[in-house]
């Protein structure tokens, strides 16, 4: 059964359309990521689901109820904000049980739930602290604890990890995903970071300029990008997109050929392949990112291990034919 269903949801601010005709379903207990560059409408979409903004057109259903006109309170969901939105004058414990107190839950039950959630996110030692005495990661945990203590079936997260450093981000990714599975929550998670989307999501919804560009599992988006935009957005380094004529000289159409850097191999001399001239080689430890020129265009190659190539060196590039993606002149997959 679908927990959250959006039908043709549109949001306009005056003349600007932030979200246009978006429809999707989030299954119960699934982790759905709204992915896209900044300004694509993903945060607005989340706020529409939360009820913090009113839709201009379309319908939103949560747990089979239409909630389009309902207040955030009546939608029975929790939210984690990018800035955490912790109350600076309240202790960690008071921040976490804020909503329980609002709803008038008796004190013994509040204490019990607080203890359980604090244990779950590892904040038991910090309950009496004020938010500004905590590190970024700990504040993040408080925000998370406040979201799960209400035991709402749905949790919305708006770029919750963007204020953390890389190391912590990775830890929290794993932790949030584990927590979501353990509690069986339905999570809608907004991010501009495709690594977060790929590693956490059951279902990715890629947005571009307020519309859905493509949606599917991370593997589907990676293996069969529907457009050149999707192809570029998912995967690092981004997919190479070159004019088909560069690679296949007899092609006369305006099509674009896409090849992922990890699908290109550097061939030994004499094995045929495409001749290219190295412009740079960046060593990353596990692999080396080689940039090479073919005619007018640049191709990025992700070669395993350390590859020593001086700029200007000639290399030969090869790939499986099945690894190429073909897009028409409007950027759609052929």
């Amino acid at each position: 059964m679908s927990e959250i269903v959006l039908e043709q949801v549109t949001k306009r601010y005056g003349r600007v359309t932030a979200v246009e005709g978006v429809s999707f379903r989030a299954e119960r207990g699934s982790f759905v990521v709204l992915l896209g560059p900044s300004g694509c409408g993903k945060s607005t979409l989340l706020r529409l689901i939360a009820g913090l903004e009113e839709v201009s057109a379309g319908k939103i259903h949560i747990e089979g109820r239409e909630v389009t006109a309902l207040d955030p309170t009546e939608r029975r969901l929790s939210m984690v904000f990018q800035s955490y939105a912790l109350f600076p004058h309240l202790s960690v414990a008071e921040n976490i049980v804020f909503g329980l107190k609002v709803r008038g839950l008796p004190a013994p039950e509040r204490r019990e739930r607080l203890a359980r959630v604090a244990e779950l996110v590892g904040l038991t030692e910090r309950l009496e602290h004020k938010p500004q005495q905590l590190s970024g990661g700990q504040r993040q945990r408080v925000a998370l604890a406040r979201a799960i203590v209400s035991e709402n079936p749905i949790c919305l997260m708006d770029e919750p990890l963007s204020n953390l450093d890389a190391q912590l981000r990775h830890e929290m990714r794993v932790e949030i995903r584990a927590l979501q599975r353990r509690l069986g929550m339905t999570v809608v998670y907004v991010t501009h970071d495709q690594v977060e989307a790929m590693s956490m999501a059951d279902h990715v919804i890629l947005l571009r300029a307020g519309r859905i560009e493509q949606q599917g599992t991370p593997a589907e988006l990676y293996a069969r990008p529907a457009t050149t935009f999707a192809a570029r957005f998912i995967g690092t380094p981004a997919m190479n997109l070159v004019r088909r004529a560069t690679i296949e000289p007899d092609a006369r159409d305006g099509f674009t050929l896409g090849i992922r850097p990890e699908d290109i191999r550097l061939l030994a001399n004499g094995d045929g392949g495409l001749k290219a001239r190295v412009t740079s080689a960046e060593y990353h430890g596990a692999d080396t990112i080689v940039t090479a020129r073919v005619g007018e265009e640049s191709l990025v190659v992700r070669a395993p291990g350390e590859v020593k190539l001086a700029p200007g060196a000639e290399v030969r590039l090869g790939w499986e034919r099945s690894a190429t993606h073909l897009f028409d002149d409007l950027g759609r997959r052929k």
Partner: protein
Amino acid sequence: MRHVYGWLLLTPAAILLVAFTHYPAVATLAESFFSTGTAVRPSRFVGLGNYAALLGDPIFTQVLLNNFWFALGTIPTSIALAMLMAAWVNGALPGRALVRLAYFTPTVLPMIAVANLWLYFYTPQIGLLDKVTALFGAGSHNWLGNPDTVMGCLVAMTIWKEAGFFMIFYLAALQALPPELGEAARIEGASRWYFFRRVTFPLLMPTTLFVLVNATINSFKLVDHLFILTKGGPDNASNLLLYYIYQTAFSFFDTSYAATLTVVLLALLGAFALVQFQLIERRVHYR
């Protein structure tokens, strides 16, 4: 050589401060221990004599009491009003720049002008207040001439003058609050009142403390309107401490007694500020 330059640079400011602040303050304190000199009887040291006279002065007691009621009448109401107005004009409101300006206008006006304006409101029979109450059949009132109503009139006018000024501080503080706090509270199901009581109000405490100290000082400092409206009357019913000091010094020419009153005023204000900071500081959350 360096410290000579340092002292030289400090000298102009130091001269001004000493000449117009520190020396007069010390001189006032010293004068309060002397009698007022006249042509026939030169000033002489009387120790605490002036302070003893103070305790036996019924006008001083009345003026102090008046000032207490004036402070109690103006401070809480103007602070509450300021908060309310700030909360209102902080929201999305058509023409809110105009409303903000309207609230702030009384602050820009000189107190003398305000008093003249309100003098017209309070004038018996032809004043605005009497014209309006006459519509409901009420008779003419001498609002400022009646000892029972005169203080209320001053309080109302002062609130009108001050609330807009304090609103500006609250407005600035409200705009510094991140909007996500309100959104988070909405999602948690908090009503607007609950959010105000549990989040906004505590977070405004630093501003409230600042405004409170200023309002207290103002309630002793602001007497310009008395010159226009009542001159402290009738029968000292609207006389305030600072106006009484002015009268003593420049109408009765008893400068020593005025100096004594001034010392009392300063001591009072100092004590209030101390208590306010001590008591409230502990409950204030600074970010």
